[in-house]
């Protein structure tokens, strides 16, 4: 089992990555939008122990942490976010559209569109009789899209190795999920697909890790799909530049004070008497990501003359 300390280390890297992106964004170095996962680190971190290289993970507009959890190279990912030729997609995709064939990782900017692609992988693994899993990430908002239903039904009917992770951060942009959800939880929908569903505290990496491990075992064992709903809070606006007027000052203050997965985990480690210098862990993560950012800054951007390349193979 992964120790809480290991989770902390993983979370520190995930946060530092997105903070480096934020830094660049606020210096005007990213053209276009940016969605960070800050506040949601425990979910990606909790997935790491159960992810195998052969598994496939398809994420959303808020995908950096999932990419890192899946083993995508941090430099290649950051270079893509900053639109460099050295990026995963040579700067063509941008932060919502990273593709890493080697890691079976991809994402989409269209809400709900991640799940069908993950299901395609699940079908492939099932056909091949491989004990791998296709994992689709969605937000709470995305779970209301029709594709959620279509995919879980198919996976349920044929017992495909398909796991849906719902990052329930309580909002789809400004719309509170509780205003637009027919049931108290998303996880309970699993019964409609003959699948198990677990709702866990997504600020607790151990809770996520346990539920995700259970879901992955279920899927790997050929028993069909599973849903893991992890509740969490998104610290930043929906995207950088979002006025975020839909959450009160108080709500945002409490969110950071009470629901920060790094702070919570740190308190637990300290309470358990862990002697490690946690500040050093944070500093090392920061330094790693700052180093990557520096490297990215020096790398070339795509040349306008190449704008028509790559549209067709032939």
């Amino acid at each position, binding site marked *: 089992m992964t120790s809480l300390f290991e989770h902390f280390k993983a979370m520190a890297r995930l946060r530092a990555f997105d903070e480096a992106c934020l830094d660049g964004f606020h210096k005007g170095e990213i053209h*276009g939008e940016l969605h960070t996962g800050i506040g949601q680190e425990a979910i990606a971190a909790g997935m790491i122990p159960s992810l195998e290289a052969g598994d496939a993970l398809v994420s959303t507009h808020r995908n950096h942490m999932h990419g890192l959890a899946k083993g995508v190279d941090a430099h290649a990912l950051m270079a893509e976010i900053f639109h460099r030729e050295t990026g995963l997609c040579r*700067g*063509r995709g941008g932060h919502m*559209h990273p593709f890493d064939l080697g890691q079976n990782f991809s994402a*989409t900017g*269209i809400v709900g569109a991640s799940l069908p692609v993950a299901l395609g992988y699940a079908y492939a693994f099932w056909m091949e009789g491989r004990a791998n899993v296709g994992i689709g990430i969605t937000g709470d908002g995305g779970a209301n899209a029709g594709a959620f239903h279509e995919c879980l039904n198919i996976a349920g009917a044929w017992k495909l190795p398909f796991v849906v992770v719902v990052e329930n951060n309580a909002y789809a942009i400004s*719309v509170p999920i509780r205003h637009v959800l027919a049931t108290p939880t998303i996880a309970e929908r699993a019964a409609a697909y003959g699948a198990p569903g677990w709702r866990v505290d997504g600020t607790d990496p151990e809770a996520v890790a346990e539920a995700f491990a259970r879901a992955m075992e279920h899927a790997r064992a050929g028993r069909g799909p599973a849903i893991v709903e992890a509740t969490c809070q998104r610290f930043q606006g929906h995207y950088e530049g979002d006025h975020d007027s839909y959450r009160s000052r108080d709500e945002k203050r409490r969110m950071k004070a009470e629901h920060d997965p790094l702070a919570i985990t740190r308190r637990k480690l300290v309470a358990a008497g862990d002697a490690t210098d946690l500040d050093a862990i944070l500093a090392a993560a920061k330094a790693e990501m700052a180093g990557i950012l520096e490297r990215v800054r020096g790398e070339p951007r*795509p040349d306008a003359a190449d704008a028509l390349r790559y549209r067709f193979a032939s």
Partner: protein
Amino acid sequence: MATANIRNLNCSQVIAEAIGLEMERDPRILVLGEDVGRIGGVFGATRGLQERFGDKRVRDMPISEMAFTGMGVGLALAGYRPIIEIMFADFVGVCLEQVYNAMAKIPYMSGGTVRMPMVVKTAGGCIGSAAQHSQCLWGLFAHLPGMKVVVPGNPYDYKGLMASALTSDDPVVYIEHQSQMGKKATTFRAGAVVPAERYTVPIGQAAVVRSGRDLTIVTLSACVEHALEAAETLAGEGIDAEVIDLRGLVPLDMATVCASLARTSRLLVVDEDYVSFGLSGEIVARAVEELGPTALRQVARHANPDVPVPAAAALEQAVLPGPASIAAAARRMAARS
């Protein structure tokens, strides 16, 4: 109009004003869409409306576009005049079914016994969000029969065309340009003055926004401002460009275009949408059909060269028309003539 010259709204405010005026006038109008209520739209074009008209008439929807676009159809059948907001035009792929097979076809399929006074309001165009959040897609909507396709390009038209869309008995797709939503009215070269009162701009009428003798630039949406800027530059070089703002695709006002071409005999179509199988080809084809092939001395198109919009700024700039590239296209024509 006394207040007109002291108002400096941005385009999203102008649209919200238009919708508000129509909602006051007609209780059958309502707005369904993601984030349209509490925050008044991600681009602000419905700001303040939920407070004024309540959360039934201005409703924040879950991310279930197929359901709520179809709800628009049902509401229209039930006697309402729904505005359905699809946040970005790019997202229409999840609900096109209800747009083209239901909304657009029901009037005809019903033999005229049913009208579909429904507005699909969406934002197209590019502000740097790459391939899945930067598309115009007006060519796609226009290809599918049964809906009017309205694409304003300045504050005056944003307001007046929304009023017309909301009084039309036909389904209307109303496409804003993302980049214009936060742009102040007074910064526009055309249509900068927006009266506070209600007025309408007729659907299906193009506007000559700049007169010129040497060539006719036919365009719409944000490219109208780009073309006007290009025309100013060109004027300094002795090239006198006429600029036509189509203001929409369906119905397509070829009379205005052809009248201009009859004088200039040079056609440059500028379009931020993909070049092939869309608006720009249609303009060229109709001009040739209506004036005869020999009436035109030059024809050129300047549009996205059929690639997804790339993320990197330099690439993006290379594939989308802007003032400099439009001027360059016009210069190439001038050089050849």
